[in-house]
């Protein structure tokens, strides 16, 4: 019982490390980037943008059909473009990670799913999550089956 608890605590501790340990800051010099984004029902093109943390990002939103908007999750900023017109949104990409941007002007049926993706720097949280998942699989299961086997000798003949 004691062993099992120790194993759990160890696992919890290491998971916290994987999830929150600070990474060395990436040191790309901040740039100014401009993207021209076409919006039509119900997609942006390009729909995936990549910038470095600290970059000054300008998005020029051009609407092809009806009024469309662009709202960036996590940054809580937005812009709207009338049909055939363009509108500009400029911001400093200070927060790193991956953020959805989405239309915030009702533009038709699939409007709630008109979504694009902005990645600032590396998508750290994704890699950390994969880290956590692999950790769970590699770290915990051999450990627990080791504890189990010590408990029940007759399970030694587990196949594979």
């Amino acid at each position, binding site marked *: 019982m004691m062993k099992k608890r120790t194993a759990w605590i160890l696992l919890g501790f290491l998971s916290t490390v994987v*999830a929150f340990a600070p990474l060395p800051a990436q040191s790309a010099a901040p740039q100014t980037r401009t993207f021209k984004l076409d919006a039509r029902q*119900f*997609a*942006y*093109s390009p*729909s*995936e943008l990549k910038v470095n943390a600290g970059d000054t990002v300008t998005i020029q939103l051009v609407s092809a059909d009806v009024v469309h908007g662009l*709202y960036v*999750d*996590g940054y*809580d900023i937005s812009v709207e473009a009338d049909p055939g017109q363009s509108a500009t949104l400029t911001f400093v990409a200070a927060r790193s*990670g*991956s953020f*959805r941007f*989405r239309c*915030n002007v*009702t533009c038709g*049926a*699939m*409007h*709630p*799913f*008109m*979504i*694009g*993706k902005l990645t600032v720097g590396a*998508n750290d*949280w*994704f890699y*950390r*999550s*994969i880290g*956590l*998942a*692999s950790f*769970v*699989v590699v770290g*915990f*299961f051999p450990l*627990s*089956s080791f504890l*189990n086997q010590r408990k029940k000798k007759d*399970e030694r*003949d*587990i*196949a*594979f």
Partner: protein
Amino acid sequence: MNRIELTCNPFIKSALKNRYPQLAVFIVMLIGYIFAILAGLIGTPVGSHNFSIVFVWIAWWAILILVAVPFFGRGWCAVCPIPLPGEWLQRGAVLAPPEKKPTWLNLRVPKVFRNIWLQNISFLLLALFSSVLLTTPNITGIVLAAMLFAAIGLSTIFERRAFCRYLCPVGGFIGLYSQTAPIELRIKDKQVCVKCEGKPCYNGSSAGYGCPWDVFPGGLTKNTYCGLCMECIRTCPHDNIAVNLRPFSADLARPSTRMDEAFKAFIMLGSAMIYAGVLLGPWGALKDAAYNVGSSAWFIYAAVFLAIIFGVLPGLFTVAVYLPIAFAPRNHVTTRSKSLRQRFAQFSNSLIPLGLMFWVAFSLSFVLTNASYILGALSDPLGLGWNLFGTANAAWQPMLTSILAPAQTLALVGGLIWSARTAQKAANEVKVSPTPVILYCFIATSLMLWLLL
């Protein structure tokens, strides 16, 4: 095992046994349901401002998948309005059994249909049209009405709740995932049932109806098909029915070996992944294909959808299940005695917690982003410019965006641990290695993380 009987509490017990509290909830639900149908049919065609879309696909869905199913299992079915009109008609009463029973056909459902394949099919049908269903009030209204009328029709032809047991597209997965819930309805003492004459819990009595879900409460070992309708609490003359608090996923300790249930697990796992990619991903072409029902792109989308669910996912899983058997020592007793088919079905139970958490992670994103529509739809349910509560013009604003990604990771990695443990227990029973199945779960989880984060 460690269970706490909730029905020990006299207040809980009488609240469940008495028909009036349930009836009050039923009436509210039924009014809401009929209003959703009407709103869908006559309200604004703009989904995000129509009660039917906002309350069914955002509010109800959020409550169902984030709260009701994980914590209360079939709790939703206990208050669901869909089968009620049919059931009342079939019974000839709204409350306790009447003196004179109405004479409907009361047929038994043919044996070929007494499984959840029809539910698998009905779910897939809705799933293939989901982009239209989710966004078009008209279609949502029609589908809700169709379910209501199908339930009424089946009640007049077949005995008990044939719609719930064999056709409801929602009921199938609620049943599957209800096995993970920390709540159950079970008998207290087997011996009492053995001696019980007439088995009123199944056959009915003047106190109540025989189990509407066509299960014998005395034989319950899992939540899947008990609709928590509380009828057996009312009919059991020996006070032998209990509602218990229990450990999560207790039912999965005794894995089912049914193929229809196994495929339900794949259908749900696959749909969650496909939706995460199509609806929440940045790929416009996929959305177009999913939305333009009838176009050639849609047929390709549908074919890929079905191929993933019936080909790729179960195919790879078969490999994962087969590996440990293939490498088992010749003298390994239990390993070879069971067919691959049975083993496949048995291990597919490990995908149940994973699938549930995939849906939780997917829904978190969808629901938190769109929850602010609820305020608007509350004040102006038909999109006609009303402002009942002064919230009609509430601005759209995603909620809790900063904790969304961590919450999704927590759900997905938690689901992975939960599934891996389930696989490990199943593997211990039959003494094979769970590693390939766990690896399968890991790959699926990584894919889902990639799609959502």
